[in-house]
Structures are given as structure tokens and as C-alpha cells.
């Protein structure tokens, strides 16, 4: 999906003279076409993410819509204060693109596991967070971020993800909206990011009759839709390739708590959060292996949910 995102960005940059791409010395075999097509709007700033973010703000102030590109923790956690203060406080038109969400760079070790970014970035005001589930959503994310003026973060898995959504032009892709992927009863699974593929595979293999929604945006939600979901389903399950602390599932629990507090729902729904169990996985492993030992052992967790549903 990273190629889909960058290729879409290249297409958009043909029409939009303000799109500017900065990279932190990463992007081999991905960014070259953009760099070649738009040499005046591309720059490798070196391995210096604090400066990359500052430079992005400086460019954005002068009218550019600036995308910063690197792997996982580097354009995010490494320069959190530049993001908080220079980007978000000043509402700079800067989009952070991080590849390698969750365990996408599995065997490369904890330095490359992007597993706390959502929790950290979603506390910062003015930030719009997007975690596309498949190449179709990645394309829409590029479209959205190219036309949206303000701070954004796109959390991209890597490559080789199956296309889940057939016709992307029919999807309602905007902050707060959920994309329904399958229709079932009793149990609804809401996922964010590329874990959606594994969720669908597991549900299909066991023939669970569950509803599944993708939530490509994290942090603010369509309240009416959430109220409706809480009325339709006995069990809500959230799935994310991120630590459970402060992540996507937490944000769903928070919003339901707020809805309950405001009297907009009569009772708190039963919510099961599935994610990484607040731990580092220091051993090598494929993305699938690390998911299973990190807490995303979907077969076991889904079986339990199904037997209790």
C-alpha cells in the first residue's frame, strides 16, 4: 500500500503544484518516480527527522502541502515535540507518512515496530490520524491528505496487502466514518489499519456471522453511527496492531463512555479490545508470528468471543 499511496500522491502532484515531499533518507524503490517527476518539490533531508519536521513547517508556511516520509517511529516519536509544537499548534499543513505500521518490519526488531504511535499522536490537538486498511484505502488517504489543509498522520503497513474494498470510489472516506466490510449479527468487529485483512481471513475461515467495519480514521467518530452500532450488537470488538494502552480500542471505549455519560446511550456496550498486550517483542519473527505472540492471536480470541456471544 505504500506504493499505492506514493503513486497516488504523484498523480495528484501533477495537478496540485503545492504538494511537496520530504524524506528522511528512506524510500528506496518507492519514492524515485516522485523525485524524478517533481525535482522542485522533493527533497531528501538526510537522517534528521526533527529537522525534517521543522523544514516541513517552514515550507508549509509558504503555501506548500508538505508530506514527510520515513519508517514508523522516525518521523513520529523521534520528533514528537516538533509535531506537537511546530506542526499541530501552528496548524501547519504537514502530513506525516510512516510506513511499517505495527509489526510490518517484524524481524528488524523493536526499533522498527511501530506500536505506540497512535496513542501518542492522538493526544495532540489538531492532528488527523489515518490508518488505511488496504491499497484502496491508501489511495483514498492520499486523496484526502492532498486536499485537506492541516496536520495529518498516515500510518501505512508496507507492501503486498490484498485489496479488500472493491470499488473505492463508493466508499465514504472521511474522519469519523466507518466503512462496513461485512454484515452479520451479535458481534461487530471494528478494526483500524492493515490488520483488517487478517481479521476477515479468520472470520471467513471459521464462518463466523459477524459484522466488520474498517475505521480508517482514528480519534473522532460519527456518534450517531456508534449509537446505532451499540443498539444492533451485543458485542463490540476492536482490533488494532498497536499497544492496547491509548490506542484505537481505547479511543472507542472513551467515546462510548462519553456517550453514556451524556445520556445518549442507555448502557455501556460490552467492548472487547484486541491489540498488543502492552509489551515489547524482542525476538525476531514475521509479522504474523509477532502479531500472534503480541496479543493478536485472532484464532483463539475470536473463538472465545464466539463461544460467549
Amino acid at each position: 500500500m505504500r506504493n499505492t499511496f506514493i503513486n497516488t500522491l504523484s498523480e495528484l502532484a501533477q495537478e496540485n503544484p503545492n504538494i511537496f515531499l520530504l524524506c528522511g533518507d528512506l524510500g528506496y524503490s518507492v519514492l524515485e518516480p516522485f523525485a524524478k517527476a517533481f525535482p522542485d518539490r522533493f527533497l531528501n533531508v538526510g537522517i534528521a527527522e526533527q529537522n525534517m519536521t521543522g523544514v516541513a513547517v517552514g515550507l508549509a508556511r509558504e503555501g506548500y502541502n508538505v508530506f514527510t516520509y520515513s519508517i514508523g517511529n522516525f518521523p513520529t516519536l523521534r520528533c514528537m515535540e516538533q509535531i506537537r509544537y511546530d506542526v499541530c499548534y501552528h496548524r501547519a499543513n504537514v502530513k506525516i507518512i510512516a510506513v511499517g505500521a505495527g509489526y510490518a518490519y517484524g524481524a528488524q526488531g523493536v526499533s522498527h515496530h511501530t506500536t505506540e504511535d497512535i496513542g501518542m499522536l492522538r493526544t495532540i490537538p489538531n492532528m488527523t490520524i489515518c490508518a488505511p486498511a488496504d491499497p484502496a484505502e491508501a489511495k483514498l488517504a492520499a486523496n484526502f491528505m492532498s486536499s485537506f489543509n492541516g496536520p495529518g498522520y498516515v500510518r501505512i503497513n508496507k507492501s503486498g496487502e490484498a485489496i479488500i474494498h472493491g470499488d473505492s470510489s463508493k466508499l465514504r472516506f472521511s474522519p469519523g466514518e466507518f466503512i462496513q466490510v461485512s454484515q452479520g449479527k451479535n458481534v461487530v468487529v471494528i478494526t483500524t489499519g492493515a490488520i483488517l485483512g487478517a481479521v476477515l481471513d479468520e472470520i471467513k475461515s471459521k464462518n463466523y456471522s459477524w459484522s466488520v467495519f474498517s475505521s480508517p480514521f482514528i480519534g473522532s467518530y460519527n456518534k450517531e453511527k456508534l449509537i446505532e452500532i451499540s443498539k444492533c450488537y451485543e458485542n463490540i470488538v476492536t482490533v488494532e496492531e498497536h499497544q492496547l494502552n491509548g490506542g484505537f480500542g481505547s479511543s472507542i471505549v472513551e467515546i462510548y463512555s462519553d456517550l453514556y455519560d451524556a445520556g445518549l446511550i442507555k448502557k455501556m456496550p460490552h467492548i472487547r479490545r484486541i491489540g498488543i498486550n502492552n509489551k515489547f517483542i524482542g525476538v525476531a519473527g514475521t509479522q504474523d508470528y509477532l502479531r500472534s505472540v503480541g496479543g493478536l492471536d485472532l484464532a483463539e480470541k475470536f473463538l472465545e468471543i464466539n463461544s460467549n456471544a
Partner: protein
Amino acid sequence: MDLVKYAQEIRLLVLELCYTKKTSHIGGAFSVADILAVLYGEVMNINPLLDKEPGRDRLFYSKGHACTALYAALSKRNFFTTETLLNNFIKDGEYFTSHINHSLPGVELSTGSLGHALGVAAGSALAGKRKKLPYTVYAILSDGELDEGSNWEAIMFAAQNKLNNLILIIDYNKIQSFGRVEDVMALEPLADKFRAFNWHVEEVDGHSIEDLKATLTNLMQIDDSTPKCLIAHTIKGKGVSFMEDSLAWHYKSPNSDEYQDAKKQLELQK
């Protein structure tokens, strides 16, 4: 414009703000006052009536803690009135925070966390070059904040990308937050460091209005491809005898007697 007078007016207003509102950082505000007077009084192309005009020169003020000096400089150039500043400085609900605030006219960037502004300034300078706009980008950094690694990322970046429209001014008052620079994290040989990083470097007495003006004017006319660094040797607390070269005045605000004494000294220098 009488720049010596302007600089002393900045200091007097700084004193007034720090005394009446009991705020810190008077020493660093006094050390940068002459630099600001030369920039806002003569060198920079700015117009308070066209605050966001694309052709203006940009100043990114990284030592946001020395906000009183910049607020004073801006008010004397009518970006807002002196009365507004005196009334609203650190007042509940007003944007006059004690680290500079971009919600105010004339302030390009909010700062306060050190080591942020130079990267943004470099981005602004890069945009100027890519868009072929003739503006000059200035960044004023304190000496102590050169401890921040982010600055050195930006310093390498500016040289690599030939940002000759960027002028970095270092207010080198030799005292940082909790000690003397040479004791905490020595910067010397500072000029050589910048030269080794492929910058054009000049050193100047940061309290000589004439030297500042001549050097800055000269820097803008140098036709080479390197970013420029002006190391301004300054004195923390400059202008008030008992505040000069003293760590205490990074924090203290003057009491009534000190205020009267300081005011008298500054009035005599106008």
C-alpha cells in the same frame, strides 16, 4: 531612525514589563535588544500594515523566553500599541504569553522550546528559493540552545541546500540557563564550527549598532551560495550595571529599588 534610541526604548519597555508583571529572562532580553533594533529599525523589509505580505523578510525568534524584547521591538514599530502590550502582557485570556506567540501581529512562529526555530527558518528559506521569492530569512538563537542537536541538523541542512537567503544570528551572551556556557557545554571554537559546517561566518560586537548594521548589510550583499551566521558577542543584562553578566538575571525580576536604578541607567543611555 535613531537605532541607539530604539534599542534603549526596547530595554526600557522590557524593564517595565518584567517589573510590573514580575516575569523572568530580563538578562537575555537586554542582550538581544540591539540586534532587534537594527533588524526591525533598518535592515529587515517589514511593514506592520502588511503583516503577512509574501515579500516581507521573516524573523524566526528561537529564544522565545526573551519575548519581552521582541514584543517591545514590535510595539515600537506599531505592530501593536505599547499600551496594548503593557496592558495585556501575560494577562488572562490574552495572547501575550511569556514565550513569544504567533497569534500576535509580527510574530512568525511561537517558540519557547529551544532548538525549533532554525529548522522552520530553513524550510522557509528553502521555499523562498524554490519559489524564487526574494525575501531574506533571519533566525535569532541563544547560545545555550546550541546544545540542542536539532539545531545542528538544521545547520547541516542549510549548508547542504545552499540556503544563502538564511541569516542566523547567535546572541552569544555566554550565560545559559543554569551556568556559564563554557562550563555547561562549551561552544568554542564557535566560528570555526560554523565554517567547518560550510557556513559564511562573521563575528561582531552585538551591542555596537554601527557594527551590527554594517555587518548585516554586508552579509545580505555577499553573493555566494552559503548560509550566513553572525555571531553577536553580547552581554547578558546589557545596559544595567548590576544585571550585566549575571546568571541571576536570567530569573529575577527587579524589585522597586532595582527598577528605579535600572530605569535611571537606561534613560541616561538614550
